[in-house]
């Protein structure tokens, strides 16, 4: 029962999505079923949000209670969770600080703490790219030397000053990089990976629909 019911649900949901793709949504009920099924995913997701809150509170509360390593950070996390959540769920009719409209506590925390922190994390990517590139582009073999030369050419081509430099070496060089490296070798490899991945995803979907693949249920 624990396996059969999920397999049947997976089969029916998959079948609905496949059929909906082939039917005109304006002329048939089946065609209109796709957004219905997708909205069910959102509804179920909404209910499971509570599981997430319980998990995060349990893990961090236990760490704070036991005063384990770095417990003040976990306390800060718990305070942040409730500081963001509680004012945002209270009705804005009680106070303009509640809800999630402009001027609310949630809005302030999001704009002046959350968003800048996210941007900071994203900006750090530049430094990580530099260290990864340093390791990847070391000319240890013929292949890695080829990679290094190609990477240098593409990096130069991507910036206006580099493009001028490349044109100075040979006027048609930027166009050659665009056509043969980016539009040729790079695109061909990317498309090969995409086609392979799409087939893999379709085959896995079919296995799930047929109940052959049940590893996602721990079987």
């Amino acid at each position: 029962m624990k396996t059969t019911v999920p397999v049947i649900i997976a089969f029916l949901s998959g079948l609905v999505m496949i059929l909906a793709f082939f039917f005109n949504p304006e002329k048939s009920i089946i065609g209109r079923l796709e957004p219905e099924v997708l909205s069910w995913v959102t509804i179920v997701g909404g209910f499971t949000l509570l599981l997430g809150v319980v998990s995060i509170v349990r893990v961090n509360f236990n760490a704070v209670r036991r005063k384990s390593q770095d417990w003040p950070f976990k306390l800060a996390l718990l305070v942040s969770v409730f500081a963001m959540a509680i004012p945002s769920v209270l009705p804005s009719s009680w106070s303009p600080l509640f809800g999630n409209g402009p001027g609310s506590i949630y809005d302030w925390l999001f704009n002046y703490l959350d968003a800048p922190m996210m941007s900071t994390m994203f900006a750090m990517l530049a430094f990580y790219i530099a260290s990864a590139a340093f390791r990847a582009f070391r000319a240890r073999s013929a292949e890695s030397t080829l990679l290094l030369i190609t990477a240098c050419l593409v990096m130069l081509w991507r910036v206006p000053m580099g493009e001028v430099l490349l044109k100075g070496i040979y006027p048609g060089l930027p166009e050659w990089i665009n056509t043969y490296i980016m539009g040729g070798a790079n695109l061909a490899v990317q498309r090969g990976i995409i086609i392979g991945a799409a087939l893999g995803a379709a085959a896995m979907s079919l296995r799930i629909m047929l109940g052959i693949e049940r590893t996602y249920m721990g079987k």
Partner: protein
Amino acid sequence: MTSKRPDIARFIVLFQFAFLILSSLTAAANGTAGDRVFQIDRLNALVFMIVFSVVILIYTRWARQGRKLFIRKINGLDEVEEAVGRATEMGKPVLFIPGINEIDEIETIAGISILGRVARITARYETPLLVPVRYPMVLAAGQEVVEQAYLEEGKPDACSKDTVRYVAGEQFAFTATVQGIMMRERPATNIFMGAFYAESLLLAESGNAAGSIQIAGTAQPSQLPFFIAACDYTLMGEELYAASAYLSREPLLLGGLKGQDWIKMILVLSIIIGAILISFDAGEWFLELFKSV
């Protein structure tokens, strides 16, 4: 359920053929494209789907009958057990991340499937396992899979409720938490399997800095170079979807992989024929076969 599977497979193929015939007849009988119940411009996709299903099912049937199927070696997957063994020897945990997408994405399901296999190995060796997730639905699925794996290995008590934990809903808050885990707990092995975006390099580089052995797998072509640069082994595209079958070595699952290879061969042939026809300016009709809306 297992004994009914061949019937379901037969039903699906018959249903698809009936659907193809009916939809063609309906489309032919009706007027303009906008009036049609069936979207005739997607008929090629339906034909492809039927061919694809039939080939996969034939190979699955052959696998069930006991035919030997050759599956090429995937180094990244062969190293999973080795990597968990390393963590056991060092007395450090294994960190597994099933991507940052929701459970309705097939990449996440593939990641969860691999998590089940990894959890079995960690249960066998009694190695701590950490699975931070970004979505509550992935949390529920992950907990189920890990608990089942520990149960099947006869060690249900070794499975903690906090093995799979929800850490943050925001992409970079999740990243920061996982980076924190990497630097504080110093896992011996990091396994990234699923959909990753801008955080891929942040995670992989942090793991590299922490000295962990790293195995990654994703179907996102834009993130693959980052994983290749920062990880020890990388599964590319379809290898991610093949992982659960490869690790389990179940003939039924391996049959699906073999069928997939044949479809790929058909596609490669189509590309070659198309390229030749287009080169001789005679391939317009051939291109039309593959156009879909």
